[in-house]
C-alpha cells in the first residue's frame, strides 16, 4: 500500500526554486532514504509533507503529496495530519520541560489527561527510543539538560508518543555520537514493522544500512529513486548518483 505519494512536487521560496521534479511513492512499512548534499531540498521536502509551509509565508508548494490517499494540500485539519507524522530534527530539540512532560506533551495536546494513561505512554515511548533505563529515575529533570545523544532519543520518544503512522528523521545523527547513532538505528529497524520511515541523511552509509529504497536529491532536483542496494552496486541510471555515493563529491 502506498503511504505517501509524491507527484510533480515543486517547492519555491519567493522566486527561488528549492526543489522540483519529485515523483515517487513510499510504501507502508518501508524505510525510505533521502540522500544528497546540503541545499538539495531535503528539509524543504519534509516541511511540505507536514504542511509547515503554513508557517512560512515565502514558501510555495505546487504538485501533489498524497498521504493515506488524501491530498495533504486539501486537508483542513492540518493539526490532525501533523499528529500522524512524527518529526525528528537535525539538532536535538529537548523542550524546556521535564523529561516526562516532553513525552507527555503530544498526548496532552490531543486531550489525554489521565495520569495513569500518560504514565504508560511515557514509559512505552521512552523504552522504544532506548532511553528509559537512563532517565527512569529522573523523569522530573529538564529535557533540555540531557546530553545531546539523550536529547535526540528524547525527541524520538516524543515523536513516537504521537503514535505516528509516518516518522520523518532529518539528519538525526548530525549532533549525536556514533554509539548513540547505532542505538537509534537499531530502534529504527525495530520500528519499521509499525511505522513508515523517511530517513533524510547526509551519511550515505547510513542510508545503505537502513533504507529499503533511496532517493538522491541534488541541487533542488530529485535525480534518482531506486532500491538502496542498487545505488551502491552501480545499478544507477545517473552518473551523478554514482559519483555522490562513491564519495567523489558532496
Amino acid at each position: 500500500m502506498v503511504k505517501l505519494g509524491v507527484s510533480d512536487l515543486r517547492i519555491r521560496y519567493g522566486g527561488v526554486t528549492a526543489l522540483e521534479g519529485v515523483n515517487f511513492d513510499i510504501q507502508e512499512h518501508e524505510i525510505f532514504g533521502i540522500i544528497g548534499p546540503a541545499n538539495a531540498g531535503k528539509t524543504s521536502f519534509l516541511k511540505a509533507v507536514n504542511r509547515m509551509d503554513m508557517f512560512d509565508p515565502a514558501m510555495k508548494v505546487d504538485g501533489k503529496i498524497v498521504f493515506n490517499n488524501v491530498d495533504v494540500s486539501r486537508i483542513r485539519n492540518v493539526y490532525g495530519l501533523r499528529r500522524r507524522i512524527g518529526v525528528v530534527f537535525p539538532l536535538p530539540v529537548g523542550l524546556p520541560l521535564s523529561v516526562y512532560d516532553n513525552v507527555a506533551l503530544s498526548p496532552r495536546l490531543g486531550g489525554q489527561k489521565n495520569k495513569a494513561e500518560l504514565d504508560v505512554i511515557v514509559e512505552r515511548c521512552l523504552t522504544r527510543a532506548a532511553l528509559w533505563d537512563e532517565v527512569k529515575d529522573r523523569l522530573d529533570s529538564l529535557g533540555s539538560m540531557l546530553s545531546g545523544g539523550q536529547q535526540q532519543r528524547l525527541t524520538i520518544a516524543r515523536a513516537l508518543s504521537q503514535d505516528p503512522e509516518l516518522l520523518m528523521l532529518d539528519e538525526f545523527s548530525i549532533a549525536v555520537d556514533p554509539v548513540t547513532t547505532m542505538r537509534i538505528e537499531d530502534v529504527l529497524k525495530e520500528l519499521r514493522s509499525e511505522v513508515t520511515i523517511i530517513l533524510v541523511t547526509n551519511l550515505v552509509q547510513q542510508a545503505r544500512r537502513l533504507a529499503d529504497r533511496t532517493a538522491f536529491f541534488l541541487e533542488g532536483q530529485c535525480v534518482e529513486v531506486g532500491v538502496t542496494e542498487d545505488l551502491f552496486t552501480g545499478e544507477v541510471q545517473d552518473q551523478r548518483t554514482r559519483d555522490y555515493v562513491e564519495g567523489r563529491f558532496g
Partner: protein
Amino acid sequence: MFEATRLNRKNETRQKLFRLGLGAMTGLLILPVVLILSTLIYKGAPVISFEFLFTGPTKGMTAGGIFPALLGTVLLVMVALIASVPLGIAAAIYLSEYASDNWFTRAINLAIINLAGVPSIVHALFGVGAFVIFFKFGTSILAASLTLAIMTLPVVIVATRESLQAVPMAFREACWNMGATRWQTIRRVVLPNAVTGILTGVILEVSRTAGETAPIMFTGAAFFLPLLPQGVFDQTMALSLHLFVVSTQVPGMPENLPFGVALVLISMVLLMNSLSIALRMYLRGKKKW
C-alpha cells in the same frame, strides 16, 4: 626579541589614558546617584517613623504623615497595572507570535516606540480629554490610572515581546510539528519560558508609574484631601504630587519633611528595581536551555 618598540610604548600609553578617561566618566556617572541618595537619607531619615508613614498630614501639611499619599500611589499603580498588564501582554503576544511582518505590523511597532517617546505632560492632557471629559470619569483614580497605564504600556509591550522572542524558534517548530496550534504552543512552551522576563517588565513599569507626576496632576491626584478615597471614582493624593506640593507650594514647611517624602518615594522605586534585578539574576541562573 620582546623589546618594546616606540610604537608599542605609544600604544601602551594611549591605552592607559583611555582606560583612565573612560573609568573617570563611569565614576562621574555614579556621583549624582550617590549624592542624591546620601542627601535624602541624611536629611529625610530623621523624619521617617511609623507615624509618618501611617497618619495623614496635619497643620496645612506642615506636620503629620503621608499616609493618604502613600496609599494613593499604591492604588494608582495597582489600577494602572490591572489596565495595562493584560492589554500589553496580549498585544505583545500578538505582535511576536501571530502578526506577520508587513507594513501594518511595522506601523504598530512604530506607534509603540512613539508612544514611549511622548512627553508625560502630553499624556496628561490626553488623559484629561479622553478619560476625565469624554468618558466622564471626572478627575478620579480611574482616570489617572488609565492615563498612567497608557503611558507605561510600551514598557510592558516591549519587555514582553523581547522575552517572548528570546524563546528559541526551534521550540515552537518542534511543537507545531507535533500538531499543536499556535495557541497551544504559546500556552505550553513559549509563555512558561518567558514569564520571568515579562514579570521583570511589569516591575519596571511599577517603578516608572509610581514616580510620575504630570500625568496624574490634572487627571486624579489632588493637592490635599481630608478623607481617604472611597472608590476608583474619587480623587486621591499621591506621593509624587505631594512631594511637589510640600517642596514648593506650602509656606512654613519644616526643612526635613520634603526630604522624608522623597526618601519614601525613592525607596519604593528602588525596592521595585532591586526586585526586578533579583528576578533577572534568578532567571539567568535557571536558564533552561
